[in-house]
């Protein structure tokens, strides 16, 4: 069949853009479909990118030469490294981004990308060819065909907005929701559930008494989200911190019955880690004040995003309570906050490339899979884009596991455990986070990216040079020094006759490569952050070594494939509950099965034996 494109990506949010861009980088003819070209690359919620766990995802996507990190730098008006006082593994780079600049950067990169076309229109339905998806129908009856379609439609599926007693259909304010596509997906027997999320009112910055509020300036040491951004091009601004007061809490408490969250109008599960202000007041009644960050939305806009008061209370209540907060007594709301309830696909219906298991050619990425956040969406877009491109090109998709990346942790959690609330990345989700740092993302993942051909030439050159330099540093660190030599540099170490490599010496927190320059240790440091990365490797080396055997077991068990159609009900010894859970999760490997909640070792034994027996029968047949 002669297709119009190889791949169609529906939706131009963070997931859709990364999916389309990576596929195009890999040489796949890709169409990115959006209601309007202008809405591509919009930041629909808070004007920030990165954070704890999320910053890791940004750097990982960036290691594949993705868009989000570079676009964030092009738009960053405020940089902050979260958790700076803690180990590098949990430091989270985060920026405030100017919405306009961000969108412009995304458009610039997409326009410059070969193999990528942007197609405007409202997608009415998917074209099915039996169990295979082969294209899309637009509402205006145009058709576009392709070998695969990635749905990255965010909250647009049967989205419903709530503000006080009012409800509207739609994904974001002012945009229609994709109702008919949603219906078709329901009809295709994909498991669908509903989640909710919310957004705060946007405030006119000119009505804020900035002088009365504590400032949070931008970090000044010049780090960037993407190493490809050589410097910070945009003027830096500051954020401020406001607080709710007793009066704020009184107003909210008195009006709880007018919130759709409490009146029962919304029954979908919202995120526990990002509750609405009415939730916070209700659940933590003993707190008399909550912190609220006032984040400017851009350089040439007066919109301010008050981070921490997401709400779906009626507009009059929103106005009243906002004005009881520090520095906001005269504040004007430009866009009121609202809650949105939306359909998502139970991600357990997907495989590790985010393809719908029971349909060919259909992938889902982003919020449609029950996640929240730009970064989570971007990482899924990347995974789905790579998965679809590899399938189209007949390559094996790279196998990433929980020991190599946050992306893989997220995908594993999603396809195995499903979601009960909007899924957000946390460093605590990554068991092996000591090795999964934001600062070593490129070392971990760019080789994989290179192997599947998704690094642009500029990035490839940069990465090759960096690897060469890294090897040189590692070689230098193999030199063995005695404790006397170290102590002679004025560094406090026990003179106990120890002789070890510099790498081993770096385990001591008081020893750094810089402090050893007197020994003649000289390493080139042209790649920003590379030395710090290596030092951090050395610092945690003993802990990483301890994890090695754990990871070996994990990887061995990942090799034991269970097959998608294993009949768990037929395995003696599994309880009904286990059978249900396993049927839902459909683990691809024994390692995955072990992570399904409530599965005991004895149950795993039964599964393993059953799988082996079936394998042998298949071979014999």
């Amino acid at each position, binding site marked *: 069949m002669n297709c119009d494109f190889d791949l169609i990506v529906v939706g131009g949010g963070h997931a859709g853009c990364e999916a389309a861009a990576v596929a195009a980088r890999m040489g796949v003819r890709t169409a990115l479909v959006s209601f309007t070209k202008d809405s591509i690359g919009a930041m629909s919620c808070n004007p920030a990118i990165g954070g704890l766990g999320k910053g890791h995802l940004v750097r990982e996507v960036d290691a594949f030469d993705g868009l989000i990190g570079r676009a964030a730098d092009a738009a960053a008006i405020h940089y902050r490294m979260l958790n700076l006082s803690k180990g590098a593994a949990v430091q989270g780079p985060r920026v405030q981004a100017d919405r306009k600049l961000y969108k412009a950067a995304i458009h610039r990169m997409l326009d410059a990308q070969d193999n990528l076309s942007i197609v405007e229109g409202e997608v009415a339905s998917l074209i099915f060819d039996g169990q295979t998806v082969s294209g899309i129908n637009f509402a205006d009856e145009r058709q576009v065909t392709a070998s695969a379609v990635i749905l990255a439609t965010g909250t647009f599926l049967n989205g419903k907005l709530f503000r006080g007693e009012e409800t509207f259909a739609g994904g974001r304010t002012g945009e229609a929701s994709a109702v008919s596509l949603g219906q078709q997906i329901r009809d295709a027997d994909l498991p669908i559930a509903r989640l909710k999320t919310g957004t705060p009112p946007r405030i006119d910055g000119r009505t804020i008494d900035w002088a009365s509020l504590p400032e949070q300036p931008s970090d000044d040491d010049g780090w960037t989200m993407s190493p490809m951004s050589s410097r910070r091009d945009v003027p830096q601004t500051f954020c401020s911190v406001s607080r709710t007061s007793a009066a704020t809490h009184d107003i909210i408490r008195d009006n709880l019955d007018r919130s759709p969250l409490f009146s029962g109008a919304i029954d979908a599960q919202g995120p526990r880690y990002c509750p609405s202000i009415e939730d916070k007041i209700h659940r933590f009644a003993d707190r008399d004040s909550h912190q609220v960050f006032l984040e400017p939305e851009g350089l040439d806009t007066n919109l301010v995003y008050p981070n921490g008061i997401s709400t779906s209370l009626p507009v009059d209540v929103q106005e009243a309570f906002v004005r009881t907060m520090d520095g906001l007594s005269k504040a004007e709301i430009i866009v009121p906050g609202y809650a949105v309830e939306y359909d998502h696909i139970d991600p357990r219906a997907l495989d590790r490339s985010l393809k719908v298991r029971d349909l060919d050619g259909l992938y889902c990425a982003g919020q449609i899979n029950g996640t929240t956040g730009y970064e989570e969406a971007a990482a899924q877009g990347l995974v789905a884009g790579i998965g679809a491109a590899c399938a189209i090109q007949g390559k094996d998709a790279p196998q990433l596991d929980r020991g190599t990346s946050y992306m893989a942790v997220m995908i594993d959690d999603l396809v195995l455990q499903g979601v009960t609330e909007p899924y957000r990345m*946390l*460093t*605590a989700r990554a068991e092996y986070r000591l090795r999964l740092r934001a600062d070593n993302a490129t070392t971990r993942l760019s080789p994989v990216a290179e192997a599947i051909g998704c690094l642009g030439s500029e990035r490839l050159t940069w990465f090759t040079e960096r690897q060469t330099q890294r090897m040189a540093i590692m070689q230098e660190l193999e030199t063995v020094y005695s404790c006397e030599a170290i102590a002679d540099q004025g560094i406090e170490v026990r003179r106990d006759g120890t002789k070890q490599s510099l790498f081993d010496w770096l385990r001591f927190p008081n020893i750094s490569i810089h402090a050893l320059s007197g020994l003649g240790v000289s390493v080139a440091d042209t790649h920003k952050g590379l030395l710090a990365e290596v030092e951090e490797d050395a610092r945690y080396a003993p802990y990483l070594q301890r994890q090695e055997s754990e990871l070996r077991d994990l990887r*061995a068990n990942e090799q034991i494939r269970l097959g998608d159609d294993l009949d768990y009900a037929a395995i003696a010894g599994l309880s009904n509950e286990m059978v249900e859970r396993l049927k839902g999760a459909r683990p691809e490997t024994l390692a995955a099965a072990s992570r399904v909640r409530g599965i005991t070792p004895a149950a795993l034994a*039964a599964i393993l*034996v*059953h799988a*082996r027996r079936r394998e042998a029968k298949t071979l014999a047949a």
Partner: protein
Amino acid sequence: MAADTIFALSSGQPPAAIAIVRISGPKASDALKALSGSVPEERRARLAKLNDPVSGDLLDTALVLWFPGPNSASGEDLAEIHCHGGRAVVRILEKALENMDGLRPAEPGEFTRRAFTHGRMDLAEAEGLSDLLFAETELQRRSAVQAAGGALSRKVEDWQSAILRLSAMVEAELDFSDEDDVTPAQLSVVHSAAAELAKEMKNMLDRPRAEKLREGVRVVLGGPPNSGKSTLLNALVEREAAIVSSIAGTTRDVIEVPIAIKGIPFLFIDTAGVRDEGAEEIERIGIDRARQQFDLADLILWLGREGEGPHNANMVEIASRQDHPDYLPKSSDTLSVSPITGDGMDALVTLLVDRAKKIVPRGDEISVNKRQAHHLNDAQQNLDAISGLQDYLIIAEQLRLARSALDALTGRASTEDMLDSLFGKFCIGK
């Protein structure tokens, strides 16, 4: 695939004529070399002297065999040691192996598991296995409930939730410190809570092991030749009709006699006479063994000259052969017995029983077996290491490791140990 090298007694419980200890994994040949000096030609039995790699002490003379992988029972490099089947010999050998780098005792069924993963078990065996598993799950559950009325599981669950609470505190600090309203975790609170948990676990670990009930309290009779050891042993045996069996030790110089006294299982060990100088080669081996026996003993009854016994906290001076011409009187508070007349024997039995009560687990107290102790110790060490740590990231990692050690203990589904527990119903090393 598996990196650890494991070892276990693969034959039945000693004492027996011979015992077979298997070592499987990449370091099997190193271990064999360390013990016997070299690796024999593959699949050929060879007689070898086994020496402790650290102290150089002679452990035993044994048959050793070498089966390089993958054509071995486990599919990995595999060594077999056919040694004498006395409990002490096996124990000493296991101890020497455990001290080697990269070696650890096998988990229950681990040899089977490795054989299975390496395709060394055929389909018929696997099918039988599968049928057994249902019954197995139920059995495991019941035995867990029965163990001290489920008290151990409950205790471990308490610990698990305590560690989870600590983890949550630390994780909140790591993942949400920048966000609204997270009260900073107090390092001192985390330190003291972890230390408290570690102490509780240590207390549990210090208690007598569950195996003591099966293996018996080890009482070693020590003293130079002709100091009356055998006479005393015979007197005890005759007095207590409840002899389980009398089996000559498999070595020429150690006799092991299991006896139950007042319902408590004892294992009496009569050693070769201890003499420091002028020993012939064979006798020297016997003397080495006696010393090893002292190390393993729960109680040493020293019949030799006062003050010349081994320096060991478990030693009790006994003035034996009250009625004998060569009687060596000891200090006035020393227990003095005469196996012939029976004088002092009641007092000796009381002493034995009193000591034993501290060594065997009490019925009303939770006790752990060797396997459980291994994991509990792991958890304890990881918690203990937290004190003084300032880096939240490392504290969180220690807590994670402690959690997974406890997961392994209760057999809950944790990634790492799941396959290990898979075939948990099989005896070690089969």
